[in-house]
């Protein structure tokens, strides 16, 4: 869905993506009790990112909790920008999550090297049957992704697991859209190499 900017002459050029979360965000700004639909919509996505990044279900829960508490507390300061960039609520939310993860890393001396099995112990995959069928492949893919440098892994998870666009990932990571595409290309090249070994 799209909407046009108010400036008459520039309206056609200023067509910006419509943030599908706008009605819910506006409602939550008026009444903080109305934040729940946004929480329910994004809790699994934020938790997934946190679990891939921390490799620890307990830490992932901490990240998820802090992310949503911060988002609720500072929701009044969120302003959607309509100048061509996809400055949407979810980009803002993932940016908060990324900051929370960065802060957590600063306090962690060593990142746990958890295999997929331990991640699955406390977390519930969305599609358990499919995961069971592909458990071996999933384990190899998980290992290959976990070996990636932080920025490549993060870009890959945001693209494949959270299904954000390259532009959205760029906004979250503070990079250009093109740089994110190259990052994902390099990440996939590394994963392909690891899987071939």
């Amino acid at each position: 869905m799209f909407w046009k900017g108010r400036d008459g002459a520039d309206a056609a050029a200023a067509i910006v993506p419509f943030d599908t979360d706008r009605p819910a965000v506006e409602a939550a700004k008026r009444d903080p009790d109305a934040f729940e639909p946004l929480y329910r919509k994004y809790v699994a996505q934020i938790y997934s990112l946190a679990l891939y990044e921390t490799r620890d279900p307990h830490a992932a829960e901490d990240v998820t909790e802090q992310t949503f508490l911060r988002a609720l507390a500072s929701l009044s300061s969120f302003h959607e920008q309509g100048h061509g960039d996809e400055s949407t609520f979810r980009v803002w939310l993932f940016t908060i999550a990324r900051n929370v993860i960065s802060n957590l890393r600063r306090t962690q001396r060593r990142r746990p090297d958890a295999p997929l099995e331990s991640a699955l112990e406390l977390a519930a995959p969305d599609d358990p049957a499919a995961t069971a069928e592909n458990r071996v492949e999933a384990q190899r893919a998980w290992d290959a992704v976990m070996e990636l440098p932080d920025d490549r892994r993060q870009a890959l998870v945001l693209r494949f697991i959270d299904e954000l666009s390259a532009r959205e990932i760029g906004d979250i990571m503070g990079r250009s859209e093109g740089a994110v595409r190259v990052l994902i290309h390099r990440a996939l090249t590394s994963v392909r190499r690891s899987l071939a070994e």
Partner: protein
Amino acid sequence: MSATDETAFDLDIHIERMLRGDDVRAGGEGQDGGEDSLVATARLLHAVLPRFHPRFGFEEALAGKLGSRAHALDDRQPIPFPVTAASERADDVRRVWDRYRRELVAGGAIASGVSIVIPLAGAAIVRWRRSRSSGTSGGLF
């Protein structure tokens, strides 16, 4: 756009189509062997990497916590204006205002009473002094 950028752009188009549910097969048009296998790797990751959902207990506990925080935030919202009888907060404000107004009225009555008494007392004193002065002068001279 460099060759790497172009390759990355093409790959991203494949990924986008795959995420949208379009059928993306390795070995598409204009793809060399290396890019074919990258598309295949992308499809594999998309198929096998699990998406996680938090524990039900955690999700509900956090929902409750957010609810209490939201309630606390809601209590700090400014008092709506204009004041209406439908709002509890507005009733509180009106009660305080009514009490304040009664005190003002009472204070006003006292003030106006005092302002009436002072001239009356002044006039009585003047009349008393006049009567005394006329009586005295008659007695002495």
